[in-house]
């Protein structure tokens, strides 16, 4: 995983609550067996009509937001299915920061495995950011979002911050505890399946 870099970008405002992972990446695209190339299917049913023409009223289709790396959305973002394809699609499309008033647990966890920073902020601040038209900067090291008018601080678990900043491979980290895992297995009373 690449280390997370500070992001300077305009904000894509997705003013909806309960955006579920079925909307982020519809099921017909879950049949692929690789991790790449999901960006073109992001929010597919909201982006395209039945003839696969772009719907002009959907925010991502507004050229004004081309190249935006920051998505701001309403409460309970990423609810529903555990599909990591949702994060792969957001990442592949170009988003590296998702800001919402709250995230569903599995989606939140999936973000950190893919170098995406999910930031939870108060609803009032989300409402302000949804209106923000200028370029803003997300500084993970200092845990600050800088807009032209203010600096907004955010909290993040220090362990998760380290994973993003250093682009750590989770599994390699875990293998450092190999002896502890073996020790646990020796005393475990749960029988094997087979």
């Amino acid at each position, binding site marked *: 995983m690449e280390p997370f870099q500070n992001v300077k970008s305009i904000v894509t405002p997705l*003013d*909806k*609550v*309960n955006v*579920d992972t*079925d*909307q982020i990446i*519809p*099921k*017909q695209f*879950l*049949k*692929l*067996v*690789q*991790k790449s190339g999901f960006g073109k299917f992001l929010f597919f*049913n909201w982006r395209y009509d*039945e003839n696969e023409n772009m719907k002009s009223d959907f925010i991502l289709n507004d050229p004004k937001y081309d190249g935006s790396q920051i998505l701001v959305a*309403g*409460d*309970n973002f990423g*609810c*529903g*299915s*555990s*599909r*990591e*394809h949702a*994060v792969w699609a957001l990442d592949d499309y170009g988003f590296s920061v998702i800001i919402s008033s*709250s995230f*569903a*647990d*599995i989606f939140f*966890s*999936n973000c950190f*495995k*893919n170098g995406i920073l999910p930031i939870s902020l108060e*609803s009032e601040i989300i409402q302000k950011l949804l209106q923000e038209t200028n370029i803003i900067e997300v500084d993970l090291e200092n845990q600050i979002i800088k807009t032209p008018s203010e600096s907004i601080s955010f909290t993040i*678990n*220090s*362990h998760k911050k380290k994973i993003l900043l250093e682009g750590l491979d*989770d*599994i390699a980290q*875990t*293998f450092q*505890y190999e002896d*502890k*895992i073996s020790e*646990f*297995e020796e005393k*475990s*009373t*749960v*029988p*094997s*399946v*087979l």
Partner: protein
Amino acid sequence: MGKTLFEKIWESHIVVEKQNEPALIYIDRHLVHEVTSPQAFDGLRMNNRQVRRPDLTIATMDHNVPTSDRSLPILDQTSAVQIKTLENNCKDFGIKLFDINSPNQGIVHVIGPQLGITLPGSTIVCGDSHTSTHGAFGALALGIGTSEVEHVLASQTLWLEKPKTFEVRVEGKRNNPHAVTAKDIILSIIKNIGTAGGTGTVIEYRGEGITDLSMDQRMTICNMSIEGGARAGLIAPDQKTFDYLRDREYTPKNYETLVDSWKENLKTDSDAIFDKQFILNINDIAPQVSWGTNPGMTCDVDEPIPSPDEFSNGDVNQKKGAEKALEYMDLKSGTMIEDITIDRVFIGSCTNARLEDLIESSKIVQGQKVASNVHAMVVPGSQMVKKQAEEMGLDKIFIDANFEWREAGCSMCLGMNPDILAPGERCASTSNRNFEGRQGNGGRTHLVSPVMAAAAAINGHFVDVRKLDLN
């Protein structure tokens, strides 16, 4: 201070613990399916890693398998590739696979318990959010993403932040337990706590309203914990749990010894304190029908659809959500639920496709015909459920009534296989999610219990099953 059941299971699975950091938790059972695993196996290959404990891992194919004639080739090439990929991965890494022709094939959350693979007090993960189902057996069962699938394959562990505890106490007794079901209890809970009400928590369902339920019904409750946003749902194991798991194909040999230790350990202490609590009294609850595009948008069958104002209680964003949902569902506030006509009926999914669901819904269907405006199907949760139902003659009851009787799989719960709604079609579904397009682009889903779905199939519109003679 005493401990909750969740805390006991958590503590007994800690491999590494550090202050203010996630704990490394050991995983006792890993269930794998075709959709969320290919990239995980690829990751192992790329890094030259093995599966640490193939003996704690099983796989099946459920999400995109056709539910029609299994002797025919799979026409959708991308589905066929994904299924073949799982076969190859299981072969390469030595994982037990219940393939498409296995008598044990089925929805992963239906076969785990049926085969005795799900055990009380264990930790279970699967790359699927409805893994919470297994919590009905007093297991800590978590849905995970593909990166975590890879992590568990490689290390048999997961880094997890300790969730908070949430007691959902279900009190009282239902007047008519054949008409008001476990599905109606869980939909009522979600309607009250909201779809994010359980975020960051593990719910323990407690009280007489829960202990009264059969294992099949308890699985329906725990299955939809994720729809309330919870990380997992739990029910303390009791005699029903122990009897259910005895003598299954993979029940451990030292089962009675395990039962003795479970009886002693797997309960919340009387002086334990939960972080959060919600109490539901079920004495008077009605069958539930969802009207919107998330499972919290649900009302009683004898109620009108609420207005966005009534639904949102002053929350502007929720109000906007409700307005959009009504527009998508092509419904108007004030319409009585029983006046909503339907096009399709789906009895299936890991929520409601176990044997008891089919028995209960068959009672409504027996001797009747599906309404002429309705296309109805039954998709048993596993091949074993299908076989048991056929031995009881349930298939004949459904087929005689013009239901389609299918092979096992996830089917129209998420429409990854050919079983999907056409745009604009309205479906009474026993599944778990009514998200936009979930059952097919433009499709409109109403979540209901199996008996409510069966009654809607016969009548062509929703009916209050409390009015029917179900005994």
